[in-house]
Structure formats: C-alpha cells, structure tokens
C-alpha cells in the first residue's frame, strides 16, 4: 500500500472518532437471548421511560449482547461507577434512576451476594464468576450496543483493519496470525494461518472467506452471543482474513435458530458499508470485500465444512470426501477459508495487540483464550472466557460455584456429540485442544455440560446417539446404519433389555462407524459411547446385569415410591398425575401404582414435602 492510502484510511477513522462511544454516564443492559427471556427488554423500556420522566435523557442506555452471567438475568452495569445489578425487575427502575444514576448510591438488594461469605459485591470483577476470567474477546459485549457501530469504534474497532490495509502486506498478516498460534475455535483446532496460507497460494478465482456460525453442538452458545453482541468483531476479522488470502467475497452461515444473530449481523454489515469499511474500495485503499449472510435450515451436519458449502450452494448438506481440501476446492470448487465465528473475532485482537501478546496467553500448543458455555447442573450458568490451560476444577468450582443443590459432581461433557464425558478423577485437567483429546473428548465449540449424580451416563450416551441418528445425513452406510444400531442397543440397555456382550458389541461397532464414515460427524459419533464406557463402565454393567439405573433416570429400571413419613396426604400429586396412578384419601399417606405410572416426574416436581422418591 502506498503512503497516501495509509493517511487516507487513518483520516477516515479519525473522523469517525468524533462521534463515537457511549456517553460517560451510561447503563449497559444485557439484551442477549437469555436475559430477554427473563424480560430484559421490558426493563430497558422502563428505564428509558423513567429517565425521560426524570429529565435525565443525558444518560445513555445500551442494549448490549450477552454479558455472560445468564443465571442472574436481567442484569445491568451502571457506568461510570460500574455497579453490577442482577435479577432486575421493572419495579426496581424508579429507585435505580433516582438513587444510583442520580445520586451514585448503591441499592444493596440488587447487588450480588457472595454465596459463602454473604458479602455484597459491587462490581463485575469482584464476583467469583468473573474474577478468574480473562475476557479479551467476549468482555467487550458490555461496552457495545450491537446496533451502533460507534460503540465499536470507541473500543478501537476497525483500527486493526486500518492498520492491516495501510501498513501490512497480506503475507505479513498471515505470518502474524501464524506467530500468534491461533487455532480454529470451532472444533478441530486446526491452525488458522495454515488455512489462510493455503488459500493465498491456491490457484483459482474467486476465493471465498466464510464464517461458520452454524453452532450446532447442543449446549454451546458462545458464537451466538458474539454474533448477537459484537457482530463487528467477526466482520472485521473476516475483512482482515479476506485481505490476507486475496478474497472479495465472504459469507456468514448462521443457524436457523438464531434470528437475533441474523438481525444484528445484517445491521452491522450495513453500518460497515455505510462507513466505507465494507464493499468497494475499503477505506480508500482499493481493496474490496463484501459479505452475504446465509441462513441454515436446521441440519447439524451443515457445521461440517463441505456440507456447509453444499448448503450455501443451495443443496442438501451432504459432506464429501476430503482428499481435495477446501483450501484448494471449497465453495463452488474454489479456494475457500472457513473459520468459526469465535476464531474470526480473535483476529482483530491479534493485529491490535500483537502476536507476542496473544501467544503469551494459554498453553504450549493452544494459545489465547476460549469461551465456554458452562451449563447443566451447575450453580452459575453462563458464558465464561478463560485462558487456555485453565483447569476444569477452576472452571466448575471457582467460576461455576459448584453443583446445584450441593449434590455430587459426576462428569462434565465437552465437545458436543463428537466429544465425551470427563470424570471427577480428571478435574485437575488443564483445558486445551490437545489435553481434551488425550482424555477421549475434544474442545468442540466450547460447550461444558456439568452433570451430577442424578445424571445417568448410559442415558447420556443414548441421548447423543439418538441425536446423531437423526442428524446423520445418510450418505455413508456405517454412519447411517451403524449409529442407528448402536442407538437401538443403548435404548435396550436403558429399558432393561441389555444383554451380556452389549458393551463389547458397542465397542466393536464404534470402530467400524469411525473408520467407515467420510466426515467428522460419523468419525467422532462413537465418542460419547466410548468415553462413557471408558470412565463409567460399572454403570453400564449395573444396567445390564442388575437391571438397575444407579442415577434413577432410565424409566424402564426405576419405580416411583412414596415416603410414608413425609407424605402429608395433601393430594397435590393426585391432581397432577396424568395417568391416575396415585391414589389415597386426603390427609392419609398416598400410594403409587407403578403399573400405571409412566415416570413422567410431574408428582416429584409438584410435591412440596419431597415425599416421592425414585428407587
């Protein structure tokens, strides 16, 4: 690039800086999908109305993307003091405006209370959930209203792009990303720069750049939160990648289930275009790049690269053999870079802060941070971002606050349907791409589903196989038929029809399915079964030999019973039972007819006296 364009691109960004950023006094309200379900949009409306009423419209209200601590929604952060309020209701708003925003006083009932010390904590960074996190990618959500590009400018948005276009050659960009050691956040952990280099060198035009936002792993939603909360970081990363590989056409492939992500990305793309950051002649440098959004239509397999290409091309998402790589022949048989949403969001950071900074975070083989969704039977559910190498124990106990109801930890499932269940004995495992693989699981896109002693590991394996049975595209026989048969065997075991030799049969079939399938969906399909057999074999044996489900989950192996001492005969369970299996006179101990009972759980959920137990 010439010196002229260098000045030009900076001048444009300097101009933009004139009107950027939220005002000094502002309130960030989480409007991510989780908080919305708790009613955060109503809280936001109430806040805006109240500010108007009290003539305080100089206070800015940011409807931000996900702030992470989904357990405690709706939450808000009041700047400049950064007070963190959670579980806020509409009725709290007048008081918040008057006291906190108006006078800077805190309202202690809205603050987070430390569950052990009972001390009230004022700011995000004081909370155990946030304290040990390193939120370099995800933490910016709190400063951005995704519908306002100015907010992104205020946190150095598009500075990396300006730097790349004015000061760096494509080769320099690739070598910087390589030096940083950025690995793909979508599952496999393939080095991003190697893909980029391949596409840069590959023959064939046009070249394509794609962001994979088909976050299909059940239990993972970090990509959703980035696309919804900080769409410009993904877009900026893609433009930098496009410049590096020499592409003018980009796609973002978004899951059908994420309408808000599509909406926010579309707005962001338009805003970037309006500001000369996307489209023809970006920042006056002569480089052009455009991005189109493609919506998925509900097929897990479309997260796989070649299936995703087929879907963008308008066909059924069936993977193809990989002896020809996507870097040479991907979308429309042209050289294609496909990276996950979170990977793209890391790119501007590497350019801004440097490869050395990035490489100083994490472990030997896995650099930077990773966002995980911490969900399941855990006290503090939500999204966390930690340096690679943080141990499972720190994540689950220090940040996650341990298991709900004080129950016993049993396993944590990572990697979605391609991953596995990791037992208590491995809680000290530092989490990175390679260590997770070593213990029979994988990183996947970062879902961590915590399970306690009421989760049955055979049932979990059955659940994943059923998932994969439905999602297999049907192209390869070993996957289509093998997964189906394995799923049937697991159904049988859970229903009490398991036979001696079933475990060994599952192991044999696992090898066949893994070896005989083209894509990663089939290739890793047996992982949930193999990892649960590896660490929880005795649970399989209890199902098969003793016809017993130790966790009390598998319906065919359990019975519902009433504790005579606890039952008060209140009759609530009789009313909720859909099959009329519970009988008894008022104020006398009730009984359950297990022939009629379907083990639906309605009575257990409704009993206030914990009188119904599973045997």
């Amino acid at each position, binding site marked *: 690039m010439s010196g002229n364009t260098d000045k030009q691109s900076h001048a444009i960004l300097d101009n933009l800086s004139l009107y950027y950023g939220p005002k000094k006094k502002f309130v960030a309200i989480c409007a991510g*999908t*989780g908080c*919305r*379900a*708790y009613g955060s949009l109503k809280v936001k409306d109430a806040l805006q109305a109240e500010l108007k009423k009290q003539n305080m419209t100089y206070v800015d209200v940011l409807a931000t993307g996900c702030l992470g601590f*989904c*357990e405690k929604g709706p939450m808000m952060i009041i700047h400049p003091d950064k007070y963190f309020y959670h579980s806020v209701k509409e009725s709290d708003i007048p008081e918040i405006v008057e006291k906190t925003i108006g006078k800077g006083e805190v309202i202690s009932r809205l603050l987070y209370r430390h569950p052990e010390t009972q001390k009230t904590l004022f700011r995000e960074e004081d909370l155990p959930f946030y304290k040990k996190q390193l939120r370099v990618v995800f933490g910016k959500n709190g400063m951005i209203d995704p519908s306002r590009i100015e907010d992104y400018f205020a946190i150095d948005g598009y500075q990396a792009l300006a730097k790349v276009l004015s000061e760096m050659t494509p080769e320099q960009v690739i070598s910087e990303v390589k030096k940083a050691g950025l690995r793909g956040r979508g599952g496999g952990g393939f080095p991003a720069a190697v893909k980029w280099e391949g596409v840069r060198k590959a023959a064939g035009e046009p070249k394509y750049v794609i962001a994979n936002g088909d*976050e*299909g*792993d*059940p*239990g*993972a*939603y970090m990509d*959703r939160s980035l696309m919804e909360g900080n769409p410009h970081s993904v877009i900026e990363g893609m433009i930098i990648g496009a410049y590096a590989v020499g592409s003018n056409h980009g796609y973002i492939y978004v*899951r*059908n*289930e994420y*309408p808000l992500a599509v909406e926010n990305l579309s707005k962001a793309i338009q805003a970037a275009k309006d500001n000369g950051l996307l489209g023809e002649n970006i920042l006056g440098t002569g480089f052009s790049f455009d991005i189109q959004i*493609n*919506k*998925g*239509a*509900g*097929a*897990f397999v479309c997260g796989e690269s070649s299936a995703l290409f087929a*879907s*963008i*091309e*308008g*066909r*059924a*998402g069936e993977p193809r053999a990989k002896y020809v790589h996507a870097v040479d022949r991907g979308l429309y048989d042209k050289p294609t870079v496909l990276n996950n949403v979170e990977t793209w969001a890391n790119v501007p950071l590497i350019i801004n802060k440097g490869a050395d900074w990035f490489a100083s975070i994490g472990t030997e083989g896995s650099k930077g941070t990773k966002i995980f*969704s911490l*969900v*399941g*039977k855990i006290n503090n*559910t*939500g*999204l966390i971002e930690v340096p690679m190498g943080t141990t499972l124990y720190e994540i689950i106990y220090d940040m996650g606050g341990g298991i709900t109801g004080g129950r016993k930890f049993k396993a944590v*499932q990572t990697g*979605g349907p391609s991953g596995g269940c990791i037992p208590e004995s491995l809680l000290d495992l530092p989490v990175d791409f390679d260590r997770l693989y070593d213990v029979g699981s994988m990183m996947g896109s970062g*879902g961590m*589903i915590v*399970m306690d002693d009421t*989760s049955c590991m055979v049932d*979990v394996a059955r*659940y*994943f196989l059923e*998932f994969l049975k*439905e*999602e297999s*595209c049907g192209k390869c026989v070993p996957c289509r038929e093998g997964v189906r048969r394995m799923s049937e065997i697991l159904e049988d075991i859970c229903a009490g029809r398991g036979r001696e030799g079933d475990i060994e049969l599952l192991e044999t079939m696992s090898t066949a399915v893994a070896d005989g399938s083209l894509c990663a969906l089939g290739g890793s399909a047996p992982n949930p079964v193999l990892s649960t057999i590896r660490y929880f074999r005795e649970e399989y044996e209890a199902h098969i030999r003793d016809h017993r489900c130790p966790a009390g989950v598998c319906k065919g192996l359990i019975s519902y019973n009433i504790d005579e001492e606890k039952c008060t005969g209140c009759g609530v369970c009789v009313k*909720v039972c*859909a099959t009329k299996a519970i009988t008894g006179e008022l104020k006398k101990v009730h009984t359950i007819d297990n022939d009629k009972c*379907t083990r*639906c759980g*309605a009575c257990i*959920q*409704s009993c206030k006296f914990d009188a119904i137990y599973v045997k």
Partner: protein
Amino acid sequence: MTKPISVATKTRQIVKKYGNTKSAVIAVLQDLQETFNYLPKEALKTAAKAMNVPMSRIYEAATFYTAFSLEPRGKHVVKICKGTACHVRGAAILQDRFETTLGIKPGGTTKDGLFSLETVNCVGACALGPVVVINTEYHGQVTINKVDKIIKKINKEEGAQ
C-alpha cells in the same frame, strides 16, 4: 377488499427477489415456509419451474432440512429444546407432558390446528434450561406445572377471540 394473492404468484415473486439463481433454493424455501407456514405442493412446483431446477432437487432440500414442513403447521408452534443442557435438566419429562396434554407427537399438529409440537436440537439458550420456545418467545426453566399453564393461557386467549 383486495383479491388474495395466489400461491403461484407469491412464489414467483419470492423467486424473483433472489434473481432466479439456483443457489437460492434454500433461501427461497425459507421465505416460502415463512409466508405459508409450510411448503405447499403448488409453491414447490412453481418454484422449480421458475428457478429452472428439477423438482427432485427442490424436494431433496425441502425434506433434508428440519426447518421445512410439507404439512400445514399449527397456529402456535411449540419447540422443545433437546440440547444436552436441557436434557440433563429434564427436557424429556417436558416432552412427555406436552405429548399427553396436546395429544400429539413431535411433528404433529392438533386437530383444531392450534398447536404443532416440534423438538429442536438446542436453541442456544442453555443457561435457561430446560427451554421451550413457543412461536418466537423463549420460556426458561420450564416445569411440568408451567407447561399446563402455558397451554391453558394460549387456549384461553384463543377462545376469547
């Protein structure tokens, strides 16, 4: 009153919006599904002709992706999340309840056309599990009692109309 627009005309309008390109098959089907709440046979035939794509390819895409339905769907679509986080928090129990209360299985629609029941492999609101999405509204930490209340509420609203 203006004359209601025919399925074929509406379909041709949608195809035209995407510039008759073959790669737009899925986008066209998505728009059709949104317009008609399912994929009418006539719409698929018209789309195939207008896009110059064999009907077999349209049908392949329409049946491959779970977001598409060849049958009319109910006015209220109940989607039960079956993601792992929801599963370990009892999604299967909720599914049982919806099935018995509505008298339909996933993929089915009630006789009065009010409800369709579907399962989704994770809606990405895992912290709220178990989650049920009704039309576009998310319901978090759903219990069996909540299921009954939700259905009652919708039935009441419908009855009042």
